[in-house]
């Protein structure tokens, strides 16, 4: 019998059978794992299995190739209830969850990505820091699935300061001086992605979305034969309407 107990983020749950549900949870040491929840569609369990909630779950299966089941599943942090009244926060949660579901392999641990989600989800209602945390999460997702960008130094001069561009081919940063002649061919690197003290100027979040989106689309989703999740496009539209880009 395989068994683990861990805290996990609810990625989603869909009804199965008369009153059960198949829940997909994301745990630090176990990754994205689906399991049957007996009574998961019941009035008691539905609030627990809302997307974005942190739960403590026990997963059991007789063999590794079985679906397995979760019992018990207990609510630890009811993030969903807090986020529900905020359109921008809910859109960001949906996008982050969609990226994790589409971009990560089943039952493979991504501890750094889990830690990033644990930082991101409770902060989604904080309008000042949510865009920076969210876009850093996307850059982190690229690194977690093996396509990390090198934003530490300029690929041309080796300088660690004044980085302003990223090559769309190599994913390596370039300084403002080295990249300026090729600015129309490079992706803009907003300062807040390399310096956590840098202020976020108008257009910076849109640049960060464009940067991460370029690599997510080509290096992750195109290679898997799936498109960029619609939820991410809706997040950009929502934050655009709210003037947060």
């Amino acid at each position, binding site marked *: 019998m395989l068994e683990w107990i861990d805290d996990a983020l609810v990625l*989603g749950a*869909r009804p199965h*059978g*008369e009153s059960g549900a198949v829940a997909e949870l994301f745990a630090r040491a176990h990754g994205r794992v689906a399991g049957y929840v007996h009574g998961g569609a019941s009035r*008691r369990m*539905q*609030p*627990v299995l*809302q*997307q*974005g*909630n942190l739960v403590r779950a026990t997963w059991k299966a007789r063999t590794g190739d079985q679906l397995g089941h979760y019992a018990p599943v207990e*609510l630890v942090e*009811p993030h*969903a*209830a*807090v*986020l*529900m*009244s905020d*359109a921008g926060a*809910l*859109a960001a*949660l*949906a996008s982050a*969850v*969609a990226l994790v*579901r589409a971009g990560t392999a089943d039952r493979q641990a991504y501890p750094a990505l889990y830690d990033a989600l644990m930082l991101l989800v409770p902060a989604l209602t904080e309008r000042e820091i949510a865009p920076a945390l969210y876009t850093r999460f996307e850059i982190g997702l690229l690194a977690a699935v093996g396509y990390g960008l090198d934003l530490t130094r300029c690929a041309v001069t080796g300088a660690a300061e004044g980085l302003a561009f990223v090559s769309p081919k190599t994913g390596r940063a370039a300084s403002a001086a080295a990249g300026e002649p090729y600015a129309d061919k490079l992706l803009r690197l907003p300062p807040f992605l390399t310096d956590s003290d840098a202020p976020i100027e108008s257009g910076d979040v849109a640049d960060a979305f464009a940067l991460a989106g370029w690599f997510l689309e080509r290096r992750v989703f195109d290679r898997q034969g799936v498109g960029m*999740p*619609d*939820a991410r496009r*809706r997040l950009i539209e*929502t934050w655009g*309407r709210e003037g947060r880009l």
Partner: protein
Amino acid sequence: MIELLGKLPGLGPRSARRAALHLLKKREALLEPLAQSLADAAAHVRTCGECGSLDTADPCALCSASSRDDGLICVVAEVGDVWALERAGAFRGRYHVLGGVLSALDGVRPEDLRIAKLVERARRPGVREVILALAATVDGQATAHFVSEHLSAIGVTVSRLSQGVPVGGELELLDDGTLLAALASRRAV
């Protein structure tokens, strides 16, 4: 028959077998009237072109009732929600059935829902308020925000059902999420 009954929501293979046996035992009292009723429903029940509910007439009885308030539109996800609100008897306006909620998990996109028709109805003269009566789930509320964004340019008042302590509910027995929502939507007395 057992196979078909087993596909109904809430019925598994065992309960489908029991239902089939019961129908066959009560042939005249149950099976034949039920068969006739199912045939009538298949022949006559249709989706209302106005609100998306189900009725034998198009527009449906709720849309054509002159006693109802044209200035209020209550938006729900499914036809069952219209029936629940009508059971409560608390709403006397018009309904609009979206046909589901946005869901990344189930691949339901905005174009799969009747949002364009809702916007068209909300633009009509005399419409004062659109009430979003969608589930207090992440998908339900994401849909409510999406619809509200599309209605914001029209200038109509958009409201949603409040969330909190159910009638007869004791605080000690409520889940943390409901308690948080109840506190967030508290009001002065």
